[in-house]
């Protein structure tokens, strides 16, 4: 890649990397070396998106530092074994139904196809639909309806087919 094009390419790479679900990307090319990582530690540490959520908004802030990131195995403990987490793309309010009073998009035990709508995340009246990335069965809903969720927080556990 030409030097002059590098910043734009880098931005693109970072965006793509963030979208991809990859944990790490390491590129070496001549003098140029790039390590993109969601792990804030040495390679193969736990992914940031699997970190524990902070206290829910109903709780008052607590005068204590957040816990250190738990190791990968422990994070997986939050999810039923063998399931994949569907995570919030950004901070917002979690809605299980398309509108107040309507039935939830999905219930525990329900089968979903890849791309199926699972919930809404609202930011100032702007709603983002979160979809399942796999076909499978919803094993758990991990967040209370209308709670604030943070980016990367696990919302559903889905057992892939």
């Amino acid at each position, binding site marked *: 890649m030409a030097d002059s094009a590098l910043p734009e390419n880098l931005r693109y790479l*970072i*965006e793509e990397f*963030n979208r991809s679900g990859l944990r790490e990307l390491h590129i070496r090319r001549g003098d140029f070396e790039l390590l993109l990582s*969601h792990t*804030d530690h040495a390679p193969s540490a736990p992914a*940031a*998106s699997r*970190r524990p959520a*902070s*206290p829910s*908004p109903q709780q*008052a*802030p*607590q*005068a204590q*530092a*957040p816990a250190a*990131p738990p190791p990968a195995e422990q994070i997986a403990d939050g999810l039923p074994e063998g399931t994949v987490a569907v995570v919030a*793309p*950004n*901070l*917002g*309010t979690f809605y299980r139904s398309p509108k107040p009073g309507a039935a939830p998009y999905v219930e525990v035990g329900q089968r979903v196809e890849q791309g199926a709508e699972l919930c809404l995340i*609202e*930011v*100032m009246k*702007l709603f983002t639909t979160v979809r399942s990335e796999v076909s499978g069965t919803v094993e758990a809903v991990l967040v209370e309806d209308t709670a*604030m969720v*943070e*980016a*990367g*927080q696990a919302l559903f556990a889905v057992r892939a087919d």
Partner: protein
Amino acid sequence: MAIKRLFVANRGEIALRVVKAAQALNIETVVAVSDADWESAAAKMADRAVVLGPASAAKSYLDPRLVVHAARESGCDGLHPGYGFLSERAILPRLCEDHGIAFVGPRPDVIEALGDKLQARAMASAAGVPLVPGSENIASGADARREGDRIGYPVLLKAAAGGGGRGMVIANNGDEAEAGFQRASAEAEAAFGDGTMFMERFVPEARHVEVQLMGDGQGKVLHFGERDCSVQRRYQKLIEEAPCAAMSDELRAKLHKSAIDLAASVNYRNAGTAEFLFDVQRQEFYFIEVNARIQVEHPVSEMISSFDLVQEQIRIAGGAGLSVGQDDVVLSGHAIECRINAEDAARDFAPSPGRITRWDAPTGEGIRLDSHMAEGAMIPPFYDSMVGKLIAHGKDRAEAIDRLVGAIDDFVIEGVPTTLGLQRAIATHPDFVANTIHTRWLEQVVLPQFGKDAA
């Protein structure tokens, strides 16, 4: 109503600085972080950290709706924007107002008016603040000569529709003004479809000075002295000091009055900075712009005034008004700040993110360090590369320089290259010590030599 829980809508050292100021006032804090910052020092120190979105600033720190949503949902009744990011976007205080959150900064209409260069100039002019002598639109070479003669050479010809340095010409006399007009006007016509030009006095060796202001929003404005930020690279400040030692007391009093007049004319609320170009030869200053936020270099003003500006910001936003009068602001000694960036001087100061493997920070009399870094801390590649600000205070400029250089020598940072070496070269340079520098001095005098002596 005093703020009870403050949302910190920023990152890095300023987020930590705001958390500490809030804690000193017994105010709870919630820090907004991106996915790349959830282990930051501010996040650890705050009562709570919430993850807004991915590392990309556009999807986290730069999204005003996301930020205010997070502030509201985490039960905050105040929001501090820090500097950069959304700090001077009027939409942020507007959304805060809509949701009953006290914004720690100016009113949105004032941010908007001051953010528009032409409006800001008009406001300054109306308040009697000196502007760079300049012309109306110029339509011919003869006009250019006449205006140049009136303003005084050298002058800078600029395209009315221009920007980014295109269509700009410096003229040292009438002949150059005429010829320069023909050339620059044709260039502007080709580039912007409009050959209209205007002219300003050009100050080849100017200093950058600025006045720290704090207003109560009711027309009362205090100043906390001026800063001199003439050590710049590509318009980025590297070293800032207070006071401006190159300015006479008489001119200094005029400068402070101008800044206060401007801010008072818009009932300025909270912290702000009026920036001026200082023509040392002519002993004149001209208004540049107002920065409607707390600035990176606010610590030097705190060091000479023994006043916590961020705490005052939070108190004012909580409706407390100014806690002191102008007579209570007593300035003493001299303070110098250097910004330490994770940049590689050998590669044209390319940002060099990475992990800090060693961090031995200096301490000592008159030394202050504002930093979010520590051993093992990560500098993510998504944001600016500043790792801290080292500030030295002394009874006079010479003592402040001595202490700064001593602190730089004691500072050990490993894992990423930093600008500490450059800062040392500046602080020990005879021109800097003699205080004969200007805004292009670093680029013209220091940088061409820097690195070559060591090699």
